[in-house]
């Protein structure tokens, strides 16, 4: 608990480009006629965990999905504004979406192992990238499973179907699958909401250990979780970014009334 008070605090408004993982500028997004995101601008720092909180349907999942353009898959989705990763606007029409998604990993709420063996699950993305050398694949799979703290549990049954794993193991497998591609950014869309508390703890530890390697952005409904694991927190309400600050400040002394109401449970 001590290090909680020792966390360094970056100035989120004037983050230097080298410290910025994602730079969102004036992002508006519509599903059909409904505007889901309204003029969002924020800078997400590198190698930190940033949490997005807010009510259901406030647009936080949509926001996280716009970091790897998963929203493209939704019919009738339009957007305006810039999302910059490494100084590159990913909303540009010439952006290679498949490559973008390989470098911005994503983990969903429900574990979705592919109907194949554990091994094949982990190297799915690698194979898509054209990696086919057995030895490199073996190494990458082992490393990814170690990173996801799953190696010890599955090393003897790598070639068994992935769906024999328990829910928590499956979710860690999904982490391994994303980590195998060595992403710069990892997007987590409520990764623990379908898991039991102990497995949740596992996953949270995993997230913290991942900070060294990549930028983690997590959407969560669990305020305690956001406070526990994240360095920075953004509160979103009805498609607007209400408050964005380091987690300690936001959860202890929110500036905005709406934030305070939400985190104290007055609505939502």
């Amino acid at each position, binding site marked *: 608990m001590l290090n909680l008070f020792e966390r360094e605090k970056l100035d989120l408004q004037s983050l230097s480009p080298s410290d910025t993982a994602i730079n969102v500028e004036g992002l508006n997004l519509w599903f059909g006629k409904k505007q889901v995101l309204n003029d969002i601008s924020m800078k997400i720092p590198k190698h930190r965990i940033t949490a997005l909180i807010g009510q259901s349907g406030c647009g936080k999942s949509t926001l996280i999905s716009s970091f790897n353009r998963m929203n493209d898959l939704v*019919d009738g989705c339009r957007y305006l504004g810039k999302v910059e990763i490494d100084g590159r606007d990913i909303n540009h029409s010439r952006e290679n979406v498949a490559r973008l998604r390989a470098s911005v*990993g994503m983990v969903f709420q429900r574990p979705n192992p592919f109907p194949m063996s554990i091994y094949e699950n982990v190297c799915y*993305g690698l194979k898509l990238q054209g990696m086919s050398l057995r030895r490199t694949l073996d190494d990458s799979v082992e490393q990814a499973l170690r990173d996801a703290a799953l190696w010890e549990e599955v090393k003897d049954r790598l070639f068994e179907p992935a769906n024999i794993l328990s829910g928590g193991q499956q979710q860690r497998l999904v982490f391994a699958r*994303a980590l195998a591609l060595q992403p710069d950014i990892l997007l987590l869309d409520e990764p623990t909401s379908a898991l039991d508390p102990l497995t949740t703890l596992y996953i949270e530890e995993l997230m913290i250990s991942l900070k060294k390697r990549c930028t983690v952005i997590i959407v969560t409904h669990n305020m305690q979780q956001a406070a526990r694991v994240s360095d920075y927190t953004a509160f979103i309400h009805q498609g607007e970014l209400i408050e964005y600050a380091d987690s300690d400040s936001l959860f202890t002394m929110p500036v905005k009334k709406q934030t305070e109401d939400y985190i104290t449970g007055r609505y939502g």
Partner: protein
Amino acid sequence: MKSAIGKIYTADKRQALAVGLAASMAAVLLLSLISIVIFILIRGSSYFWPASINTIEYSDFHSGKTEQVFGQILMSRVPASTFAEDRVIEQGLEQHWLMSRVENGELIQSNEIILPTQIVSSRNELDIAELRLTDGTRAFIAPAGIRTEDREYVDLVEFSDVHKNVKILQRQLKVIRDEHLSPIHRQIAQYDRDGVALDAPARVKLLNEFEHFQRAIGNLEQALNGYQLVVRDAMGKQALVPMGNIVSVNFPNRLGFWGKMGFAAQRIWGFLTEEPKLANTAGGVFPALFGTVLMILLMTVIVTPFGVLAAIYLSEYAPNNSLTAAVRIAVSNMAGVPSIVYGVFGLGFFVYGIGGTIDSLFYSDRLPSPTFGTPGLFWASLTMALLTLPVVIVATEEGLKRVPQGLRDSSYALGATKIETIWYTVLPVASPAIMTGVILACARAAGEVAPLMLVGAVKFAPTLPVDGDFPFLHVERQFMHLGVFIYDGTFHSQVNSQGSSMMFAACLLLLVCVFGLNFVAIKLRSRLRKRYARD
């Protein structure tokens, strides 16, 4: 009125009535299903079962003379006469018998209808044999001995040795005919076409050779005819049957239950591996079975990629608009089009249209005799593929729809493009559904008759569509199909009741094939489901 009924039938009673009605309908359904299976099973398997041979004494209806014959009862039925009812009451059902007797030294088989009242006595004698002849007929006789070239009487014990010798002679005959005589014959015919003079030395030499082989054949045939089986009918009249015409001699009256089982197994094997005889009323069904399997195989190869790709386009790529909806409705309606319509379309479009064009473009030297412009295996497979396409498309689309969005999203999130996602993730998960569709399509094609008769299936095909000549698979040839075989055979059965039991045996085989296919479909589906199961 309504209220009165309402009073009589309380809610409870109505409930009971509805349940009872529904249950009885289900019972009727089950009953009819079971009776179909049992009926086909009994009638079909009776073809293989060696029935015992009776020695009956019966009096002729008109002359009143009694006569003794060896025979087998084929079936009993209500007589087809105007006084049928009275006759049934007086004399019982009429019986159809297959009998053998010797007349003027010739063995004669006949189908006869007699009434139970005509039969004076009936018994089973152990020494009566069933003779199976090469033309497919069966005769019931008492074998008396064997006559060979050099010996007047050889005991029956040596039958198999003598039979072996006969077979060797037959094989020699065949070799001379196929490998020596017919090439010479062809060569001479070629000379005649080319206008070679009748007394040209080459032609004369060939003619001499031809005569030489003809003589050899004559000698062999004479030797062959020297081997004869001496048989007697029930009246003791004697006849000679050339050994070359005999397939087997067996004594069903001597067999116990297991002996009969063994015999039946042998006959089932023969049924599956032999060619049909006596205008499809005896022998086996091998060409029909082979043709059916090959046609289904070809059809599967055609329909699977087409159906799956079409379903992928419809469910994954096609925009969600009214045109797509219209296409979907059209596909479902295609499944309801009567199959004969497909047959006519196949004949008009594939056979005469495309086939005729292929002939005029590539095989013009063989015209006017058509190569592809005539009904054949390929056109039949194509027509059946078209007919079963909706089954595959609908099943595949259902399967694709059931693949969870989360799985697709996970794949996209790992940097997969749409086609990669479909190929590596969606299709494997949907594969049980696709399999089911394909196998259902196979079962449908196995049972179809009407369209096949128009586009290539025939009641008798002289050659199989696969042989040793390049290109080994001759898709332009006509072929035999089990369904068409049964259809054809049932017409013969009106004159020959022996054929009808063969038809039931063929029905049984078809049923086994279709049930087998469905069973495989279910097994495969549950196995794949287990493999790709989602929590």
